[in-house]
């Protein structure tokens, strides 16, 4: 009951006219970011983060999280109308969404996509409201070994659940950790990995890396693919919206399954992209006429959109309660918390209850606002893609440069951003996953700190990570996750032998 009262207080915070305005502004900006290829949730929020320094933390997080919701909504628009996924998590939406648009059912597909996004998000928010305080209370008992174990588990799940080469995941992650080490060692005051350069003394800023890795590299990839926008017309009449809404409850089972997949993949840091693919795959395999998928089935839009949005929202649960973000965008929001002087982790629920519940309440409202905005303004958002790519690319480059500069007011950071952009382009082409690298970069220092403090407690023995009933199981789960690719292969080999 305490939670409900706290949530109501949160609504009172979020419903102030100023915050509502920020919400609408955030959602509109977010949809634009989601529609434009090359600007995504993570780097869009990273670019705008420095502009929020002068705002109150609550207003700032409301606006930035609404940008995130907007980006989640916006990715679907271009997938369905143009067959160009604006965001990686809407790739699966193109499979059935674009055929629907070609058959002249674009409005139906868009309504289905937006509504299922909303349902997925709502499910995840309700879950966060219900269990976040419990997780935070539980986590208050955590010491350094437990925190290290949780981070270990988070990183191990990348290896265990990632598609593609586990070795590449490990390499990308370790590179992220090393980048985090560059600069002043906060414990001993020694300089590490700077090789005498004064510019490197500050270390690599996580936001600059995100802008380069996700922003610049995306533009390079888009131009390489040679963009041509030939799309269906977008117009959403109220009649179609209502008709589709009447039809959607029939797919409640797919919807529920997708919600669960999304929440699970969002809390363990697998993220929205694999969640949408997995949910689409499940829907196809379990459908009676699975072969008809890909020809314009409405279920093929419902499943990935629900899961992607559920995953995107539930990625905030571990960020708020444990200080371990579940996705790159959540990581950007986390570094925002630190900049506004808030210490992420379980204490946030005790010390900054206003902030936390204001944010949670704004998630409910933000998604309602988001649904209304996208349904009302779809044609305008689709028109953005008629702007020639030459202009869009130049504007995005300038925006990235401004974003990278304003993080620390350092012109050198713009150079770093460009280098990260080229690195990101090459790594993406070679199928190195970028998300673990980015999370390692943002969590590197805290992981190392937890590791060192644990070793100090134990006098240098690694046994501390299996020392009690709390840390042992977390570490064990992490180890299983870490060696999952090997275990799975071993299991397959044994089964083949038998």
């Amino acid at each position, binding site marked *: 009951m305490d939670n409900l009262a706290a949530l109501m207080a949160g609504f009172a915070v979020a419903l102030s006219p100023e915050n509502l305005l920020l919400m609408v502004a955030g959602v509109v900006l977010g949809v634009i970011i989601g529609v434009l290829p090359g600007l995504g949730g993570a780097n869009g929020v990273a670019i705008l983060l420095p502009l929020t320094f002068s705002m109150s933390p609550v207003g700032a997080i409301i606006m930035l999280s609404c940008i995130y919701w907007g980006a989640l909504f916006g990715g679907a628009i271009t997938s369905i109308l143009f067959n160009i996924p604006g965001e990686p998590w809407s790739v699966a939406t193109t499979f059935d969404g674009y055929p629907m648009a070609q058959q002249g059912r674009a409005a139906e597909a868009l309504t289905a996509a937006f509504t299922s996004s909303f349902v997925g998000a709502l499910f995840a928010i309700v879950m966060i409201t219900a269990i976040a305080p419990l997780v935070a209370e539980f986590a208050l008992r955590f010491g350094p070994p437990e925190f290290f174990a949780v981070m270990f588990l988070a990183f191990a799940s990348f290896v265990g659940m990632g598609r593609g080469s586990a070795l590449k995941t490990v390499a990308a992650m*370790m590179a992220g950790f090393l980048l985090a080490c560059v600069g002043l060692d906060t414990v001993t005051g020694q300089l590490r990995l700077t090789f005498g350069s004064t510019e490197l003394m500050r270390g690599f800023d996580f936001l600059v890396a995100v802008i380069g890795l996700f922003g610049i590299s995306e533009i390079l990839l888009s131009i390489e693919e040679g963009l041509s926008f030939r799309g269906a017309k977008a117009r959403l009449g109220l009649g179609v919206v209502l008709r589709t809404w009447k039809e959607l409850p029939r797919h409640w089972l797919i919807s529920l399954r997708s919600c669960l997949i999304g929440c699970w993949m969002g809390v363990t840091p697998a993220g929205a992209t694999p969640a949408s693919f997995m949910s689409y795959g499940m829907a196809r395999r379990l459908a009676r006429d699975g072969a008809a998928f890909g020809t314009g089935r409405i279920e093929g839009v419902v499943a990935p959109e629900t899961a992607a949005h559920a995953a995107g929202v539930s990625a905030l649960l571990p960020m708020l309660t444990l200080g371990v973000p579940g996705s790159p965008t959540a990581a950007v929001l986390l570094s925002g918390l630190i900049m506004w002087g808030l210490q992420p982790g379980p204490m946030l629920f005790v010390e900054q209850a206003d902030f936390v519940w204001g944010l949670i309440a704004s998630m409910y409202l933000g998604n309602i606002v988001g649904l209304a905005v996208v349904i009302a303004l779809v044609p305008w958002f689709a028109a953005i893609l008629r702007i020639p790519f030459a202009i869009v690319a*130049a504007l995005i480059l300038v925006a990235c440069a401004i974003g990278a500069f304003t993080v620390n007011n350092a012109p050198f950071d713009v150079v770093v951003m460009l280098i990260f952009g080229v690195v990101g382009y090459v790594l993406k082409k070679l199928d190195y996953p970028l998300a673990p690298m980015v999370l390692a970069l943002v969590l590197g220092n805290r992981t190392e700190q937890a590791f060192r403090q644990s070793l100090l407690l134990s006098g240098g023995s690694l046994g501390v990570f299996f020392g009690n009933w709390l840390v042992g199981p977390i570490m064990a789960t992490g180890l299983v996750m870490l060696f999952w690719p090997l275990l799975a292969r071993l299991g397959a080999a044994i089964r083949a032998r038998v």
Partner: protein
Amino acid sequence: MEVAAAAAFAAIGVLAVADSLRGGIAWGMDGPQSGTFPFWIGCLLILSSLATLLRAALTPSRTLFASAAELRSVARILLPAAAFVAAIQAIGLYVPAAALIAWFMVRLGGHGPAVALASGVAAAALIFVAFERWFLVALPKGPIEAVFGY
């Protein structure tokens, strides 16, 4: 390319290990010395990238990293972007931004030079008003802005 990337990762690992040895990887007066953590991370990086490298070297892939045409179109974005970034270091952000927008419009968009230049200047002016006036964020400025008194 696969081999080169893996080799580059391994090289970063070696660098990290070398620098960590300087910082000390043993148990110091006050707990683990500052090189300990990066040392082991570096070792893991070397191991994982060497394994990737071996696998890539042993199984030659037939997929091309990028065709010449693709690389050319990437270069058409990347080279102006590099010039833009370099120019920011020297003469501030606004003039290079206007130039970059104009350049892209002429070379990639096929617009006339006059239209492109006007758009570039207009965009730079808009950025100026938005950041210096509304958000009160100072962006890098050079001699040309100084003429206008900033």
